[in-house]
């Protein structure tokens, strides 16, 4: 215990043994962090090239987590949980693939392709249908949070008429950039089709997410997604994100500690740079909260 306290003191408190500057922010330690960062960059690139399971870009988004969070939100609002539907999952995956192939990010394709086509192609005859889209988020909860803060997406998630849901999380190249797309597709089966399969093809034009068209057969746009190919990426991105957070916070503490003790000793003029370092790291820490978010439509 005494050794731990001594180590923390050595790293974060300026005193005689560390030349009155916390060891954590001395040049040799800063150099060590930089070498570590370079090694991580190099190691990750090497891993991406040697492992077929790792594509070179990743998120911590999983279908299971998205499904769980979606139903948690619905239950919180007193709604019935959605059933997971494999046909909607296939439709969501095909929608994501279509966006990569035709290089667009929208509910409707440049050639007029609609989300409902994918749903119908996969044998799901709907009475209501919806689609939510997201891209480049790092974590599942960020996706659900973003949708819940958007009125149209929120209405989709909380639509009481929906009974089924399917997700796809797909990696690919969009506009020349490595992109992770999340597609969530909702639906409720056509009542008549349950009894008379021959009537399944009677479809009403779709309605975008957020529109309040009170038609019993109006679908609402939502997103599709697909499972990530590897669990390894999940842990890597999560590890990297939290490593950044912890390192930047510890460095901030060391700079502030150094500044505080310099002020007490009347040596503030020698440590004024610490204010810039602290401000810089504070903005970087805040930026981490933004970087983990993506875009929704």
């Amino acid at each position, binding site marked *: 215990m005494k050794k731990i306290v001594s180590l923390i003191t050595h790293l974060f408190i300026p005193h005689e043994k560390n030349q009155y500057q916390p060891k954590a922010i001395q040049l040799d330690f800063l150099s060590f962090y*930089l070498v570590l960062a370079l090694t991580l960059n190099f190691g990750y690139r090497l891993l991406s090239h040697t492992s077929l399971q790792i594509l070179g870009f990743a998120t911590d988004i999983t279908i299971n987590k998205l499904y769980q969070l979606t139903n948690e939100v619905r239950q919180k609002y007193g709604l019935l949980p959605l059933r997971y539907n494999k046909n909607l999952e296939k439709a969501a995956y095909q929608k994501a693939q279509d966006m990569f192939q035709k290089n667009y990010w929208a509910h409707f394709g440049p050639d007029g392709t609609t989300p409902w086509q994918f749903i119908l192609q996969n044998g799901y005859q709907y009475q209501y249908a919806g689609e939510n889209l997201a891209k480049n988020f790092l974590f599942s909860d960020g996706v659900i949070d973003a949708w819940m803060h958007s009125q149209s997406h929120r209405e989709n998630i909380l639509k009481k008429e929906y009974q089924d849901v399917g997700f796809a999380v797909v990696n690919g190249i969009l506009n020349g950039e490595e992109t992770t797309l999340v597609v969530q597709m909702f639906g409720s089966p056509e009542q008549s089709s349950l009894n008379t399969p021959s009537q399944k093809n009677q479809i009403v034009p779709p309605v975008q997410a957020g529109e309040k068209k009170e038609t019993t057969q109006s679908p609402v746009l939502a997103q599709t997604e697909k499972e990530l190919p590897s669990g390894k990426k999940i842990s890597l991105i999560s590890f990297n994100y939290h490593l950044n957070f912890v390192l930047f916070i510890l460095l901030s503490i060391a700079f502030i500690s150094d500044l505080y003790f310099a002020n007490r000793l009347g040596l503030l003029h020698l440590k004024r740079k610490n204010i810039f370092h602290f401000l810089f790291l504070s903005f970087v820490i805040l930026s981490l909260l933004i970087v983990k978010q993506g875009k929704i439509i």
Partner: protein
Amino acid sequence: MKLTNHLFDYLLFFTAGIIFLIALNFFKGEKLIEFILFLIFISFYIIHGIYHHAIKDQLKLKIVIEYILLGFLVLFLIKLLIFS
């Protein structure tokens, strides 16, 4: 030497940081633009820091290295996060 003597420099850097966060929020989800914004902000931090010490006649090699090391450390860790 009081901190208030350098208020303008602190405010300038603080303003730059706020603009950086706003821009980052505006372009969230666009990985390349996000990285370019980081690159600009980190460059500003290093140049501003060195310039600040230079005009006060307090510039030392150790200070320059400190700014560069911290700037590049953030750059490489963020690069790994955005393009992982």
